[in-house]
């Protein structure tokens, strides 16, 4: 019986023998007579053949296997090393081909060459190939749970490190630069391929897996004050401040320079103290909240006919770039240039040293992220018999439920590597053997399981358990408390709603949202709830008869109703300003929101 053939999921005809047709397409493609990105799928369920040529499909390379033998031979490999042939030659020769997700369904792919049987159709180019570049950077990743592996690679992307060699002349937005970055002792082949040694983003630190006065529960980690003092995970934070001399209609122009005292919105002399004659701050000035970095004045927003005869300077407004709420730093570089429109552009880069502190985020490469909860004075840090004090104390409770065995293996590998003075290969599926590493560790005079006897730093007593301790590669993540700490008691409110502003930069409040409101209701804490929502409370005069807002003439201290005039009964009613707004909105829509007043008691 005939087989239906679909090209790009459109029925286009029939062939006598579906299997033969599929084989023909594949062999033609391998002989380079069809484009390499034509894929064909023989659906075993319906018997239909689907030929795919459309764009946007993800394809991946696999080595073709014939009769249980890889077509990629030693000779090819030698030629590749000698640069006699290239990857594209292999593709042209049909040794490597690209499969899409549907053709993959028909393929039987072997992981290693030694596993090949006559049934196999393909061989992985490398077992690491099943993960991406970032995931391949997780050592011993094949010992981790899949979800953790993915998270681990995501965490690594947030690690701060040596992001660019020309950082000193760059003007990036919000960047972090790690001091003394290191190459991991336990690395993978992808570290070599990605030239990780040129842009590392972490440090090899001593990790003890133990609890410490309960301070490292719930994923918290503990740092050694001594290590921090010696520069552990220290970094710099860079942030630019940018000002432009904008052009306005009517030939008016912004002006960079120290504003005159008669400018509208003039701050105070003290705020401008760092500005030099050109109105720009000098390098190495240490600035704090409120200090002006770039002085600037702008022309007035609205010009009336009178102003045009006046001197322009008198009505200019202040529009300097100044340090926002809670910000500080040192001016690192001042850069004068012009933008695409030819306007004067000033960029000032601020720098701030960031010493690890409580609340900063750290992670290993196995999705074992944690926040610093305590920095212990070095004298109190537990120590081993050889006097090693851990830099980080990590809680063992993070291990069992997350099943990140790679985390443990990395520690073991790190210990062997550090003692043996070599790098350990932790590449997925071709990692160094755990047993061999244990034996090697034994030969260095350590316990083969990686544990050591440790002593209480405070009392000097020996701990009754053996502690798993060794070097691991840790990353400092870009989430730092310094950029996030925030509190508010009183503060600015929004103009329209009279509710508190939102966000840290605007010194805003934290919203008590709908679900939070529900918890108050569930407790029956009705009056407390009202108090929490009092932030936009207003007292409004209401005309009793008309049921709408009345007017209070403060000059004469008299109330009058827009409907019934001065003789109306008027009561002062407390309500939220937001509700007053919606009443106003109703009125603007010609809906009459009539309030009926009665005594609550």
């Amino acid at each position, binding site marked *: 019986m005939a087989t239906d053939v679909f090209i790009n999921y459109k029925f286009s005809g029939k062939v006598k023998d579906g299997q033969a047709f599929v084989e023909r397409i594949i062999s033609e493609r391998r002989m380079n007579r069809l484009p390499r990105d034509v894929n064909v799928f023989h659906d075993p369920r319906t018997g239909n053949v689907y030929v795919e040529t459309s764009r946007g499909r993800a394809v991946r390379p696999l080595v073709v296997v014939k009769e249980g033998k890889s077509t990629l031979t030693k000779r090819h490999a030698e030629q590749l090393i000698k640069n006699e042939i290239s990857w594209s030659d292999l593709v042209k020769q049909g040794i490597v081909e690209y499969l899409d997700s549907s053709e993959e369904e028909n393929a039987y792919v072997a992981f290693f060459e030694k596993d090949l049987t006559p049934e196999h159709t393909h061989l992985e180019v490398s077992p690491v190939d099943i993960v991406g570049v970032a995931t391949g950077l997780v050592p011993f990743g094949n010992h981790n749970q899949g979800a953790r592996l993915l998270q681990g690679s995501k965490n690594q992307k947030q690690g701060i490190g040596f992001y660019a060699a020309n950082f000193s002349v760059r003007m990036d937005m919000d960047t972090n630069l790690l001091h003394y970055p290191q190459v991991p002792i336990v690395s993978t082949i992808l570290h070599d391929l990605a030239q990780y040694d040129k842009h590392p983003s972490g440090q090899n630190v001593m990790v003890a897996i133990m609890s410490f006065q309960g301070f490292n529960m719930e994923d918290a980690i503990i740092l050694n004050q001594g290590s921090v003092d010696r520069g552990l995970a220290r970094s710099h934070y860079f942030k630019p401040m940018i000002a432009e001399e904008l052009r306005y209609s009517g030939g008016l122009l912004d002006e960079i320079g120290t504003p005159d005292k008669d400018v509208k919105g003039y701050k105070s002399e003290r705020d401008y103290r760092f500005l030099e004659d050109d109105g720009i701050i000098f390098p190495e000035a240490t600035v704090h909240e409120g200090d002006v970095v770039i002085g600037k004045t702008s022309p007035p927003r609205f010009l009336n006919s009178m102003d045009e005869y006046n001197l322009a300077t008198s009505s200019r407004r202040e529009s300097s770039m100044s340090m926002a709420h809670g910000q500080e730093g040192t001016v690192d570089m001042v850069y004068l240039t012009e933008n695409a429109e030819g306007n004067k552009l000033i960029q000032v880069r601020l720098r701030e040293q960031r010493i690890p502190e409580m609340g900063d985020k750290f992670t290993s490469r196995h999705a074992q992220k944690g926040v610093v909860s305590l920095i212990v004075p070095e004298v109190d840090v537990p120590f081993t018999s050889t006097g090693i004090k851990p830099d980080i104390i990590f809680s063992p409770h993070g291990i069992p439920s997350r099943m990140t065995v790679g985390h443990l293996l990395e520690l073991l590998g790190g210990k062997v590597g550090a003692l043996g003075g070599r790098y350990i290969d932790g590449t997925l599926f071709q990692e160094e053997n755990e047993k061999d590493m244990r034996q090697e560790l034994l030969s260095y005079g350590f316990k083969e399981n990686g544990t050591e006897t440790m002593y209480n730093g405070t009392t000097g007593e020996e701990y009754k358990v053996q502690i798993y301790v060794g070097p691991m590669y840790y990353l400092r993540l870009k989430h730092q408390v310094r950029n996030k700490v925030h509190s508010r008691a009183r503060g600015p409110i929004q103009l329209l709603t009279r509710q508190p502003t939102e966000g840290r930069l605007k010194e805003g409040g934290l919203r008590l949202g709908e679900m939070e409101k529900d918890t108050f209701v569930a*407790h029956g804490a009705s*009056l407390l709830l009202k108090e929490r929502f009092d932030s*936009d409370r207003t007292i409004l005069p209401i005309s009793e008869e008309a049921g709408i807002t009345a007017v209070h003439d403060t000059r004469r201290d008299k109330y009058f109703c827009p409907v019934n005039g001065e003789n109306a009964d008027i009561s002062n009613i407390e309500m*939220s300003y937001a509700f007053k707004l919606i009443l106003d909105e109703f009125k603007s*829509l010609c809906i009459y929101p009539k309030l009926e007043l009665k*005594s609550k008691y």
Partner: protein
Amino acid sequence: MEQLIKEYADLLPQSVIQDIVDNVPSGTSSAKIKKIFEKINEEYRFALVDPGQSVGVISAESIGEPSTQMTLDTFHFAGVSEVNVTTGLPRVIEILDGRKNISTSSMEIFLVSPYSEGKDITKIASQIRETTLKTFIKEIDINISNTTLQVTLNSKSVEDAGVNKKKLIKLLEKSIKGYGVTEADDILTIKPTKEGDINELYKLKEIIKDVYVHGIKGMKQVVPVNRDGEHVLVTSGSNMKEVFKLEFVDTQRTTTNDVFEIENFLGIEAARAAVINEIMKVFEGQGISIDVRHILLVADTMSMSGHVLGINRYGIVKEKPSVLARASFETPIKHLISAAITGERDYLNSVIENVMLNQPVPSGTGLPGLVTGGIMNPDHHHAAKKAKK
């Protein structure tokens, strides 16, 4: 004892008193019985909901919290072999939404003796299962050259099922009126109405597969299951009305998971019970315990109007008396406009309106008013103001 029962008749519910009567061993001293009654009364008073308690919010939170847990760590489908039933959060949402068409309807058909012991179980199952023409078709081929559809019947399966072939063809002709069907050696040839229209044939191919032959409509799968020695039929698809007509079905226990169908067939009280059972089944299936009273409240609210209403803007939210409350939950403009047209009045009786106005909500500590013995003039502050003027 009799004396005590009479005394507590107004204080405790009948069922609680009955429980005491049933469980207190005979020969217990009357002083002891009195103590038991007192203690139980005390416990009962303690368990009562206080006036002004926000039972709705508490129920919502009590159901909502485990539900969010459920999204994370459970499977959303479960069932025996071919009968797959939606469970987990999607199922809870489906029930609470009061959906008319649920994603996987399923029946549990209990049988009367001797069928419940397994007599003719496969025969009964095949009698209930909806059989379509697909079962009897070996192959459907589209002949492109002369644009006809060729349906090859599987004569063996036709015979096995004891179906008349002539009748089968008649059924086919009836359901695809206007097409010429010719028969020759188990091969039915169908011509399209328009000459050379292959697309039409493709659509026809699917229609032919689904032509109804016999069984109960909607019963896609019927699987006999042995439950502690009793044979029960679990189905995919639901049709209570037709199933109840069969004489071997135990109509007392047979049930469906389609709440809407129960409402139509058995009435609102049965539907309310079905809502409770179905929700409890999902949570119990995941090993999550929720106090049934939370579900009872939800089910009562849903069935209050006489029809099962979903907890959404088309259902119970529509029934809320307050304009502001309705407007605060989805599609505000619609509600405000209709309120403006009809001149609706909002009495500010529930929570959300009072939050909007920044007034104490009338629940918990905000509910009770102050009752004084003295004379109080409700207009006193007006009078005072007038005097000031």
